[in-house]
């Protein structure tokens, strides 16, 4: 598919910002949505809207069927079974579901949890919470100066006491793609469960949870062209995890004098009315991604990352974080320029219509490790062009000029 055709599917890409064409490079925060997804949600509300798993009437049957069909699509998308796919609100809720439903119940004082210094707060704070409530130890694997995970350090920290290893597949700051397969082997050797934060991976490359060998995999619809409000949690063995949000829809039997009997997975995890239209919109998103092909998306992003890295490295006073080899990174480029505050950089870029993210990107431990307070992050997706990378480069040259660097 041609990039022009793809861009045409995204109505927002036609708008102007500060009189300039929008150059949207904040995809790691959230992605834009194609009209196929917007239409699916609109169509659902206009023709099928009803609560699911409740009514016997026609609309309820149609909406239930559409909802469960989305689950099947998502399952297939990552090579899982539908009963292993739980819909949540976002990656954060997915990871918290494991922290509460597995961690608090099974992790004890003396046990260990192993994570890395490059984690998003969403895959860091839940483990600090489990540590606090259980007395377990939290171990943190370091990175190399190029921003790669120090595998020998991680391997050394992993022991027979490690109950859970929690690692991001792709760093939302460094762009680093972590060797999750190798990490899974280390986890298996120690009989530890393995959780992968796939928030920055599932949108950008083929994912196969079976090949990865993980026990839990979490990601968000909104970062992969889908609606906000939908997250996914893959659980290899749902019997190992207790529900975290209980209520309507999560039970088989409820008694007043003994414990309830939980429903089967995935329903035991999905308490209350879910975001039905969002899940249906996400089903349309998976169709859209499949139509383009995840291999193709990865290839496009690799090309644009290589192109942008080459150009950005030539800018005066720029520091780029993370590995320089585009094959080892996703389409995320974090940088600082000339000691200029990231907010100033982002504000000048905004005046040129360019959207980037300044700040710590919810990675305070990583900011400390890199010894910086904040950075700017440009992140690309399937609809971004090399020309847009050039616009970013000119914008940064303007930043240097305004600040006389």
């Amino acid at each position, binding site marked *: 598919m041609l990039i022009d055709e793809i861009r045409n599917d995204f109505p927002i890409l036609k708008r102007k910002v500060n009189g300039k064409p929008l150059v949207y490079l904040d995809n790691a925060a959230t992605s834009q949505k194609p009209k196929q997804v917007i239409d699916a949600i609109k169509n659902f509300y206009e023709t099928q809207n009803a609560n699911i798993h409740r009514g016997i009437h026609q609309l309820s049957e149609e909406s239930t069927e559409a909802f469960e069909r989305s689950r099947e699509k998502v399952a297939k998308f990552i090579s899982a079974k539908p009963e292993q796919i739980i819909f949540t609100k976002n990656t954060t809720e997915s990871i918290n579901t494991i922290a509460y439903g597995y961690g608090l119940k099974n992790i004890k004082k003396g046990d260990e949890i192993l994570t890395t210094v490059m984690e998003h707060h969403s895959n860091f704070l839940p483990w600090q919470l489990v540590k606090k409530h259980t007395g377990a130890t939290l171990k943190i694997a370091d990175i190399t100066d190029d921003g790669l995970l120090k595998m020998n350090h991680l391997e050394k920290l992993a022991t027979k006491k490690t109950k859970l290893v929690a690692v991001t597949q792709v760093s939302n700051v460094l762009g680093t793609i972590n060797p999750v397969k190798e990490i899974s082997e280390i986890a298996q050797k120690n009989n530890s469960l393995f959780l992968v934060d796939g928030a920055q991976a599932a949108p950008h490359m083929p994912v196969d949870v079976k090949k990865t060998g993980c026990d839990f995999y979490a990601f968000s619809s909104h970062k992969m062209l889908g609606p906000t409000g939908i997250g996914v949690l893959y659980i290899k063995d749902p019997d190992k995890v207790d529900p975290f949000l209980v209520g309507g829809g999560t039970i088989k039997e409820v008694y007043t004098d003994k414990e309830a009997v939980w429903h089967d997975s995935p329903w035991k995890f999905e308490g209350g009315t879910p975001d039905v239209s969002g899940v249906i919109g996400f089903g349309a998103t998976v169709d859209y991604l499949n139509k383009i092909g995840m291999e193709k998306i990865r290839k496009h992003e690799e090309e644009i990352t290589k192109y942008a890295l080459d150009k950005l490295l030539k800018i005066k006073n720029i520091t780029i974080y993370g590995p320089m080899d585009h094959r080892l990174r996703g389409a995320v480029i974090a940088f600082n320029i000339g000691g200029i*505050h*990231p*907010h*100033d950089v982002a*504000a*000048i870029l905004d*005046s040129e219509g360019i959207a980037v993210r*300044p*700040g*710590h990107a919810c990675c305070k431990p990583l900011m400390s490790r890199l010894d910086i*307070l*904040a950075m700017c992050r440009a992140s690309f997706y399937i609809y971004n062009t090399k020309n847009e990378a050039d616009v970013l480069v000119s914008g940064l040259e303007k930043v240097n000029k*305004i*600040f*006389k660097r």
Partner: protein
Amino acid sequence: MYAENIMDHFNSPRNSGEVKDPDIKHKEFNPFCGDQIELTVKLRNGKEIQEIKFQGKGCSISQASASMLTEIVKNKNIEEVKKLTKEDILDLLNIPIGPVRMKCALLALDTLQNGIKIYEQYTKKK
């Protein structure tokens, strides 16, 4: 946004540094961008700002507004300084400030007004 007056104050801040033996010394942060401003103030008769200096780190808006503020409050009565508002700062900056950057713009004024408040509580107790 990057008007000449802002860049001028950012690149050559007025009253930068620290006042010796200050009556007021107060520091505030803006956790959103990591801006920080520390103000030191020497008062005349416990009422009037005789000398004021600032040191800080952060974006151009936060640092330029601190520099501008120190210029206008010199020799002013602290009662007057307490009455300064958001609008006064926006007039000084003279550029449009969106909701996200408002905290940066107001950091210096907040630091000064909170510093005065703490000073007054402390002297009242004595």
